[in-house]
């Protein structure tokens, strides 16, 4: 095994273990904290794939904003009485079966792909010469300008919706 493959093996193993820890902890606060470690690993994998901008976004938005939101909600709800002995619903074997079948289906389907589409213009050398931020910004503000504006609309709807839902009396 070469060095990149060893790196990938470490990341894959720890990410699988961390995902299992996230979905099996009894206390949601522990779950969120394992999720934080998982997000750091995912950001490391993004760096490995030459996506520096998205690695930074992963840390800032996911670990910095979304997980803090989860922790705030756990703090707001008084969950001491919720921690019962029974973590899983009684139909959990069905869920396990569906998850296994789905995973096997995805792996088999992907392994049947034989034809790959032609390579695009954004090679590693091009991105290194241009800069990661510059490349992604140029694409985002020219070809994907309309989806970018729609994304801002989605965020506006989320802000207004969260305020309306959480307010006792409007």
């Amino acid at each position, binding site marked *: 095994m070469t060095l990149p493959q060893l790196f990938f093996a470490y990341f894959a193993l720890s990410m699988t273990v961390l995902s299992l820890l996230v979905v099996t902890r009894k206390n949601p606060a522990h779950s969120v904290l394992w999720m934080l470690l998982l997000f750091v690993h995912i950001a490391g994998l993004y760096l490995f794939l030459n996506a520096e901008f998205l690695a930074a976004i992963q840390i800032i938005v996911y670990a910095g904003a979304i997980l803090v939101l989860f922790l705030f909600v756990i703090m707001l709800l008084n969950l001491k009485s*919720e921690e019962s002995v029974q973590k899983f619903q009684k139909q959990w074997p069905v869920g396990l079966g569906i998850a296994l079948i789905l995973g096997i289906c995805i792996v088999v389907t992907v392994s049947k792909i034989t034809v790959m589409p032609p390579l695009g213009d954004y090679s590693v050398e091009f991105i290194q010469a241009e800069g990661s931020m510059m490349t992604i910004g140029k694409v985002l503000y020219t070809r994907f300008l309309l989806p970018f504006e729609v994304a801002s609309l989605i965020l506006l709807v989320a802000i207004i919706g969260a305020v309306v839902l959480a307010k006792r009396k409007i």
Partner: protein
Amino acid sequence: MVPLSWYIVLSAVMFSIGVFGFLARRNLLIIFISIELMLNSVNISLIAFSHYLQSMRGQILVFFVITVAAAEAAIGLAILIAYYKNNPTIKVDKVNLLKG
């Protein structure tokens, strides 16, 4: 050089773990966290494709997925708090107001 299929298998494994958490857990908060886990596993495969096909589209798509995930988390947690004010429980098998 790490082959592309390794990333896809890692992504599939994480997605399956997320599906299991979504279907099997009783705690509504952990169900939300499982949804985030599934979104992240899809992001990994998108970025891997983006790198190996030398295209920028995967990264742009991940950008939008993160936006939608943030909006979804905010709205979902607001609904959770609004529900908790009326019925102080977040176990999904106790949420049966619509049951006849």
